[in-house]
């Protein structure tokens, strides 16, 4: 079932970048994959079916304000996905395909009940930032554990990836469990690597959690925007640190590598 990977060109990974009204980061996400030689495609939810889902070896839910964040950030997008594709998506995930949510996408995966685990209903929430403000600022993330989206990164290293959100505070009754089972992938920190408070933690997330994965490590969500840190010159301080590299790029390289090896 579904199309198999092309054997001759290892880079031809088809990536579905899912969107609805209000999604607004799909272009940068698309460009990131395109730049690395993959085959991304922007697909409106109304065009994705349980069959065509399997044409893609990776599914991304990008950032934005899907449905205006009305009711709750990500809630409407999640409800619409659930009504169309829930069992297909469940099968997709169980088959090990990588599914990534960035910012609004993370909110969607949580509302869908695919993160922190496949439950079908929300067991976590990305709530209103403690500051009650939209926070657009550079953030530093420490990699705690690996998943499908991080293999090109190093555990313990600090990565510079910007945040821009009003509802990013991760809360969940399952946090202790997530810490134990190595499902916490990124935590906000300061330049010294300490788990500091505001503004290094821009939203007040418990344990400074910025990104988590599911038990199998193939579904992942993060609040900061790696597609906005793909090139050196997108960094906050690139005129000072010209050789700092672009950390967001590693996220995309990692998932393509993972998808290739599936």
């Amino acid at each position, binding site marked *: 079932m579904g199309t198999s990977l092309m054997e001759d060109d290892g880079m031809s990974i088809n990536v579905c970048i899912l969107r609805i009204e209000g999604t607004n980061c799909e272009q940068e996400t698309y460009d990131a994959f395109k730049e690395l030689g993959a085959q991304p495609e922007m697909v409106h939810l109304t065009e994705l079916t349980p069959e065509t889902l399997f044409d893609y070896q990776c599914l991304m839910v990008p950032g934005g304000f899907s449905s205006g964040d009305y*009711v*709750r950030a990500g*809630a*409407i997008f999640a*409800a619409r996905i*659930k009504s169309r594709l829930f069992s297909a998506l469940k099968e997709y995930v169980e088959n090990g395909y990588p599914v990534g949510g960035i910012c609004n996408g993370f909110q969607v995966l949580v*509302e869908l009940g695919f993160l922190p685990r496949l439950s079908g*209903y*929300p*067991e*976590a*929430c990305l*709530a*209103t*930032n*403690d*500051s*009650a403000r939209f926070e657009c600022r550079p953030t530093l993330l420490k990699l705690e554990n690996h998943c499908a989206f991080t293999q090109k990164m190093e555990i313990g290293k600090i990565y510079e990836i910007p945040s821009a959100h009003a509802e990013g505070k991760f*809360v*969940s*009754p399952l946090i202790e469990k997530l810490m134990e089972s190595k499902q916490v992938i990124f935590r906000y920190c300061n330049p010294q690597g300490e788990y500091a408070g505001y503004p290094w933690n821009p939203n*007040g997330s418990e344990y400074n959690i910025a990104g988590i994965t599911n038990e199998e490590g193939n579904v992942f969500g993060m609040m900061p925007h790696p597609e906005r840190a793909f090139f050196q010159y997108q960094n906050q301080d690139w005129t000072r640190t010209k050789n700092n590299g672009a950390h967001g790029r590693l996220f995309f390289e990692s998932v393509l590598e993972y998808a290739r090896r599936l």
Partner: protein
Amino acid sequence: MKAEVKVELKEGVFDPEGENIKKALNLLGFSGVKDVKLAKLYTIEVDGNDNVEDMCSKLLTNPVIHKYTIRKG
């Protein structure tokens, strides 16, 4: 049938918007304001048997942070 669904934050969940509104009111001179909490009120007009409880669990609330009450009229 008209149903009113009131969605509020659970006890113990920090309400940053409420906090900020309280601060703003205090700054405007309303020094007596001690607490402000926000709630969302959905007024839903339904024909037929659609279950309002289901609407709450499928879309209107996130059980991790919300509690809700339904009033049917």
